[in-house]
């Protein structure tokens, strides 16, 4: 079996908008995300602690699980050939049960490095009710041709 790339670099020029993703957050979302990332801190499962100790309105999504959400958002778009090089994110506000997360993204630049890796630079945001809660910037390697596979690169051929 040969899996054809969902997306190659030429399909993602600067200015390309990623499809929007909406997701309704529940307490289960927050707790499952915390436990899946082995984050046992009480503000991610104990509402009383979150409200009375942290001063937040409820339990809230933890950092590693937000990383997983952004990865899911990116690879929904790239398909399995897409290989993350780096991701930076900044949390401006917390995401609580009852919120609807809306992920948006745009390709800000593309490049091919000296090793031949094709990179899409993507700017993303997680918003709730139009308010940006987290911003993220990622580099993701995309195949430059239908025969290219970024996952095969090792050592000096992979320079994230």
């Amino acid at each position, binding site marked *: 079996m040969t899996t054809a790339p969902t997306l190659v670099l030429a399909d993602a020029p600067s200015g390309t908008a990623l499809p929007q993703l909406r997701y309704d957050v529940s307490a289960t979302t927050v707790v499952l995300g915390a436990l899946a990332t082995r*984050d046992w801190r009480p503000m991610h499962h104990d509402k009383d602690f979150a409200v009375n100790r942290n001063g937040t309105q409820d339990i809230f999504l933890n950092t*590693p699980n937000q990383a997983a959400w952004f990865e899911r958002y990116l690879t929904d778009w790239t398909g399995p050939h897409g290989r993350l090089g780096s991701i930076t994110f900044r949390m401006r506000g917390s995401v609580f049960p009852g919120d609807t997360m809306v992920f948006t993204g745009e390709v800000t630049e593309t490049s091919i490095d000296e090793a031949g890796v094709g990179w899409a630079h993507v700017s993303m945001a997680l918003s709730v009710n139009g308010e940006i809660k987290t911003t993220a910037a990622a580099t993701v390697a995309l195949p430059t041709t239908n025969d290219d596979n970024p996952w095969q690169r090792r050592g000096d051929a992979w320079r994230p």
Partner: protein
Amino acid sequence: MTQGLTPLPEHLEVALVAHGGDPVAAASTMLGVPQYTTAGDFPVEMGYVWSSLASTENGNPLYWDAAVSDELTEGPIAPPSMISVWFRPHHWAPGRSEVALPLQVHFDLKSLFGLPEAVMTDNTITFYDPVRPGDLLTTHQVLTSISEEKTTKLGTGRFWVIEVVYNNQDGALVGIESYTGFGYKREEAR
């Protein structure tokens, strides 16, 4: 000990005494120094991978379809964004009397400065070789900066940046994670 703070480790108690009780000077002894080199408690395993995928409803066939992972990645791998999961200790283990804390340098700084609350504000992860089931990762933590005292809507405290470097059992670099934390006191607690 202030509520929410862990005991100061011995090396920081020594640094604090050596610097006349000045926490800024004591913290500066940590800058750029690899600390807490730790091997993971357990190997990378697909159970946690699938829990993470379920938590985000991530259907990437790379993680669900062995034929796809055999073709693209020469066998199963873990999602890159899960890298920090593999060094987070379990909540309990035989013989351990206290809850183990990930990112210990962060908790050391909270204790050193007497800041009972903290949030993470920025997180950067750079991904190198793929992490695979069965891998046993080793990490170390490096404090790279500490800010002056600052006041935000949360309270008054300090920002700090900590890097976590991950290698696999063969010594290959698999990732570097950089965290910016803000330790603070809520205004009514001051």
